[in-house]
């Protein structure tokens, strides 16, 4: 296999295992298969899958920050909102193609994250958390005060027009489906490559002990900054998909596009799936999707359940579902780390 051999009395450093090769290949296959879903599945199923895709993106981005950078953000909804509103601005105000607008809005989300990172990344733990929230609130208020009719101020806005003048509702559904699946695949791959690179190693060092990492020459702020910008762009991408999916957005309130409820969902997904594991957020997104489909969706008890389960996982099962499985069975399906394995003589 592709194992990096380091002959130390039968111990090897291994990145790929046969299982992870099969699984990573399998996952790529699943993505290709899912791309054909609009040809087979009905309208409802496609809508449901779009919902699952943006949840997966959100969970991946939040996990990248908290699980790999040790950065608990409660302000990613700021980037979700920026993404959605940037897409509205480009497509409604400037008559750009809505899907091109979504792509550009994702990049705008990443660009906005750069100055924000310069302000908040100096802060530790709780101070970082609340500062990101303040930034998100400031974005929301600024958008709600925008007098531009395309933005709509506090009453919200709709992106129905730019979609409808170009596409039939059926085309819109298909393209939105492919755009969101593409976003999941690209962001998944981007994180996979990032975390397997040198940066992945230094990020884990930062998460485990920031001072020690810095003293060994790890560029702490650069590593965190890269994560923050990627998470900003990814969250903005999720925001654009939400816009294309529900077609109208509101700027203010906990349930709005800038709402704190998105962070509640992100924390739930990552804690349930497994903080700091690559696979965990996908499992967490599926778990939230199941909760939304079969439990109360929206409403008071949904969020009470969401918060309660998140607290329970944080206290009782902090590694989440996938972290626990990983620990017990020593498996890693998507190989982002290094493993030491003892080989008995004669095995390869």
């Amino acid at each position: 296999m592709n194992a990096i051999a380091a002959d130390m009395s039968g111990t090897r450093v291994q990145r790929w295992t046969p299982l992870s090769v099969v699984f990573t290949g399998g996952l790529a296959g699943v993505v290709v298969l899912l791309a054909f879903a609009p040809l087979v599945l009905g309208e409802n199923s496609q809508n449901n899958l779009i919902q699952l895709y943006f949840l997966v993106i959100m969970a991946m981005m939040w996990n990248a920050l908290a699980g790999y950078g040790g950065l608990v953000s409660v302000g990613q909804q700021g980037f979700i909102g920026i993404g959605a509103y940037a897409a509205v601005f480009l497509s409604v105000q400037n008559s750009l193609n809505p899907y091109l607008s979504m792509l550009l809005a994702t990049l705008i989300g990443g660009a906005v994250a750069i100055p924000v990172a310069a302000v908040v990344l100096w802060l530790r733990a709780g101070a970082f958390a609340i500062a990101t929230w303040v930034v998100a609130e400031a974005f929301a208020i600024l958008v709600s005060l925008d007098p531009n009719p395309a933005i709509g101020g506090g009453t919200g806005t709709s992106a129905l027009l730019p979609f409808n003048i170009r596409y039939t509702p059926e085309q819109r559904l298909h393209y939105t489906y492919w755009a969101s699946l593409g976003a999941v695949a690209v962001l998944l791959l981007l994180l996979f490559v990032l975390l397997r690179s040198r940066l992945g190693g230094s990020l884990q060092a930062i998460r485990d002990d920031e001072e020690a990492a810095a003293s060994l020459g790890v560029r702490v702020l650069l590593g965190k900054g890269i994560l923050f910008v990627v998470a900003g762009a990814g969250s903005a991408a999720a925001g654009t998909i939400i816009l294309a999916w529900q077609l109208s957005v509101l700027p203010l309130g906990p349930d709005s596009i800038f709402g704190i409820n998105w962070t509640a969902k992100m924390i739930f997904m990552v804690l349930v799936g497994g903080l700091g594991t690559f696979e965990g957020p996908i499992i967490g997104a599926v778990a939230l999707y199941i909760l939304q489909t079969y439990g109360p969706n929206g409403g008071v008890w949904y969020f009470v359940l969401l918060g309660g389960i998140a607290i329970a996982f944080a206290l009782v099962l902090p590694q989440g579902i996938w972290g626990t499985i990983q620990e017990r069975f020593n498996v890693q399906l998507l190989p982002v780390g290094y493993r030491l394995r003892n080989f008995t003589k004669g095995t390869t």
Partner: protein
Amino acid sequence: MTWVSAVVHGILLGGVYALLATGLALMFGVMRIINLAHGSLALIGAYMAFLFTEHVHVSTYLALVPVLPGALIVGYLLQRTMLERSLRAGQLVPLLTTFGLLIVIANLLQYFFSPDVHSLDEGNIGTASWQVSSSLTIPWFDVLTLGVAVVLLGGLQLVLRFTQLGRELRATAEDADTAELVGINARAVYARATAIAVATAALAGVFYGMRSSFDPNAGANQLLYAFEAVVIGGIGSLWGTLGGGIALGVAQAVGGQINPEYFALSGHVVFLAVLVARTAMQARGFRLTLRGVG
């Protein structure tokens, strides 16, 4: 003259924020955690006072008699059941659990009290004010709030300095492990700190509720304002908290004078500006030390 009035009202408004910030600063000082549910706990205090005034028909001030001891107990239990476990699990877990609590509280309040706004009656003092000049009136209630904040911060300062509990709190804040070596039960000290913090939060929530109307999601803003006051005032100083609260209040009142919609935004902007300034100063200090060494 309207600007003078805005500044004066901002200073008085700072009293509420200092009240809100006290408990947050205390918990951060002793345990190094930021309780994201702090604003929500303040809000529970306001709703409990509302229940008492509604059903027992007592004044809001009398409602503090059952609400504050209740908050002490809630804080103690919160520490013993949830926060203690969170603290053991590292720096990030308390953030996750207190955020979960924030979401649970906001939605339970919405279930029990409806999403509508409520307000608390501030009594006879609510309508009384001192007419300084034609454009400047000072409401006595705002003066009372600021006075309560000063008394609370002063009292806490005295407790920290001169009582056994205060010495234990300071020792544990300095170094919990060493404090344990000299016979302090750090877990009990933490529980008392959280109890006091939640009681001050409830007090702040009641005053906030008398000042302006509140809904189940108001806890988020109360947390942000409290935290902004702590940071602007300088983390780790109780009187700084009062200064930070006043600075935040003035920023909001002056912003609101320019345009009522800028009220909250101008507070956020001043907070972020303070962060940037502090970062820039740190970076400069860092460069200066480097030059000194090289």
